[in-house]
């Protein structure tokens, strides 16, 4: 959902970070984290990146994406388990009394320049 505008925002943020660092050069590696429950599709991000990065300082960048899972916290058995589903029961005890932690954000982790 909205992957094109997300990538546009990402490129602007990277340009701002690089300018702020005072360094020149092209980006060699770009590391981002996409939460598995964020509603953002990884393939669509790659597609949008290929579309929008030419003629920017990211045009030769290798985009590395880590997918972050959410953790399911169970109110019944106190288990903490990694989870991929938007709606689930506790994988340990089957209880419906669960809350989620993490796995919902999009993060710009780091930028590696070639200078």
């Amino acid at each position: 959902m909205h992957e094109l505008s997300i990538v546009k925002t990402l490129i602007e943020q990277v340009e701002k970070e690089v300018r702020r660092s005072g360094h020149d050069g092209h980006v060699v590696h770009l590391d981002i984290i996409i939460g598995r429950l964020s509603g953002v599709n990884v393939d669509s991000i790659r597609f949008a990146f290929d579309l929008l990065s030419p003629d920017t300082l990211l045009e030769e960048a290798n985009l590395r994406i880590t997918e972050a899972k959410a953790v399911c916290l169970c109110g019944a058995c106190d288990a903490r388990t990694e989870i991929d589903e938007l709606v689930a029961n506790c994988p340990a005890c089957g209880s419906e009394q669960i809350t989620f932690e993490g796995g919902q954000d999009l993060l710009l982790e780091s930028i590696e320049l070639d200078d």
Partner: protein
Amino acid sequence: MKIVAARKILKANDQLAEENRGRFNRSGTLVVNMVGSPGCGKTTLLEALFGGLDGRVVPAVIEGDLASSIDAERIEKLGVPVVQINTQGACHLDAVMVADACEGIALDKTDLLVIENVGNLVCTAGFDLGEHLRIVLLSVSEGDDKVIKYPTIFRKSDALLITKTDLLPQSNFSVDRVRADMQRLTPKAQLFQVSASTGEGVRQLADWLLGKCPRAE
């Protein structure tokens, strides 16, 4: 060389939403973000709601649609100050649009500001507008399985309003199923059953909202 950024990509909307919320707190305005599918009855419910406020609060509305001022014109007929946002294709409102729209609202005089979001159960979940309360509408004609099918928006809501309850006798919609699904996803959320055409539940909804307004009589 490596620059470690470790920041949210969509931080800009969150930051502006916090600024919006601060502004609303300072003016003493309760702000409600109203979401739901197209046709679930958002504007019609506002027409019923403002009829029953009896001058207890000063309301205002921000309407969000891709195009047209159809909804704003309906609200205007009630004598309620309203600003229409036309997103020109964007499928949800965001904090920037709301901040701009607030230029046309006398916030210091407004006790209750309702933002009627673009009709959409998906994208609206991801954008904080700076509101204090988020209410989601689900009409009887949409079916009772939507809470589980669209969990994100229901999970992030403070109240679910089942609308068009006058249609219950003609449908197989199960209020119990919706109640159970909401209990599972977000036990703290309030559940209301309303019908704008018969008036059922509208008073209870108004009382709940007024109870949260800092300045309501």
